[in-house]
């Protein structure tokens, strides 16, 4: 039986491009399991339309780093459900770039099921035209998951006032003695900095590219293929500037 298309009433699909979703529905879910102590990495570069639904389970002391460049021409969505066992570590570094009327989104649920796990989520978005970029991210700290260390850093840069960023970092904490932080900022490129670059002879588009490249680079820090991601991000930037 084919699963029913989600509706906007479901929180995780609230800002989705449901019309575009229809063409790729149903989505085949993917599962990644890391055994205790195992280490893994994954890089996902989305250039066409794509919807990913990935469940990641980390065993005790396992480590997993996930890097995403979501520069979909069309609807691009990455949904992650991550469960962390004792002492495991999960890192998400994601950049989303969109222009036109595209919707790109990252939806995460990170569950600290046991004590002393660490999660880091760094999401940077560059949105132009009438594009929409979403981050819906929930960090859940289960009862007894003491010593949890969770962090979400979400920033979006709007190149046009007609672009939209929805950022919703959420924390659900059912344990004491945990460290959870989230930061969220949506802004525009600093006009002072752009004039400073121009005053040295750098044309406006190059000045913007220089600043945005630096902004997005924060999402790729520590990635095994940082250079490839940076180059792909720059190419995607050029199409929205």
């Amino acid at each position, binding site marked *: 039986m084919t699963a029913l298309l989600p509706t906007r009433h479901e929180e995780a699909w609230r800002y989705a491009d449901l019309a575009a979703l229809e063409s790729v529905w149903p989505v085949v879910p993917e599962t990644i399991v890391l055994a205790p102590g195992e280490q893994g990495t994954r890089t996902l570069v989305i250039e066409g339309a794509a919807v990913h639904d990935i469940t990641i389970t980390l065993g005790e002391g396992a480590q997993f780093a996930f890097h995403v460049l979501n520069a979909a021409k069309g609807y691009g969505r990455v949904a992650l459900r991550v469960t962390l066992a004792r002492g495991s570590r999960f890192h998400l570094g994601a950049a989303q770039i969109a222009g036109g009327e595209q919707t790109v989104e990252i939806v995460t649920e990170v569950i600290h099921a046991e004590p002393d796990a660490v999660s880091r989520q760094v999401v940077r978005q560059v949105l132009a035209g009438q594009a929409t970029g979403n981050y819906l991210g929930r960090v859940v700290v289960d009862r007894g998951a003491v010593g949890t260390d969770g962090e979400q850093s979400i920033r979006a840069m709007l190149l046009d006032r007609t672009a939209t960023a929805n950022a919703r970092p959420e924390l659900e904490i059912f344990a004491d003695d945990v460290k959870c932080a989230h930061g969220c900022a949506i802004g525009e490129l*600093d*006009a*002072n*900095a752009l*004039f*400073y*670059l*121009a*005053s*040295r*002879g*750098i*044309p*406006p588009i*190059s*000045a913007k590219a*220089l*600043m945005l*490249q*630096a*902004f997005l*680079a*924060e999402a790729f820090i520590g990635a095994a293929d940082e250079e490839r991601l940076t180059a792909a991000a720059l190419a995607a930037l050029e199409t929205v500037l």
Partner: protein
Amino acid sequence: MSLLTITDLANEVAGKPILKGLSLSINAGEIHAIMGPNGAGKSTLAYTLGGRPGYDVTGGSATLDGRDLLAMAPHERAAAGLFLGFQYPVEIPGVSMVQFLREALNAQRKSRGEEPLSGGAFLKLAREKAALLKLDPDMLKRPVNVGFSGGEKKRAEMVQMGILDPKLAILDETDSGLDIDALKVCGEGINAIMRRPDKAVLLITHYQRLLDYVKPDFVHVLAGGRIVRSGGPELALELEEQGYEALVA
């Protein structure tokens, strides 16, 4: 010949008139200083000539080397040979000084129809100019102005000027925030880079002390959006002694 010619320049910032018919001519080989009370329009003059958005020209003209400065975009003015030294240099996280300056220099060269400078040749040039300003060359690897002290930011501005090699430098309060030693280093840097028969400098300053190191050929007093007095270096000393009020009244 005249390198910078400003005639009856008037402008508005946020709808408020600031410059009200300012005229000034600077020949190649000359150093001019503009002094004046707070709010006189000194920084506004610098930003207007640099083409900063929000500094709307409402009248008059300005030419650099015979070219209409006001018709050009800010990056084109730089390529035409204008350098603006900022009173408050801007921090740009994530972009290294080297990357920024190489891109700037090569963008300028490209617009003048010159070949880009190779990475090696650029680094050699950058190290040479950093040494001239006694700036640790390792600072060039750091993000633009991020974590620089006040004095380091101003010295870095002069390093940029040395690398970009402009025809005309407008230096907006380069002396503010400098200790005595750094003031001397910056002053000597300005002389070494810009004291040439084919170049000119417009120094904007509140104080005589920078002029002890960079001796101006002409001193102007800017008040109420106009040049109200011009003279030789002795005018700066007179101002220091008597204050602006006596002269402007």
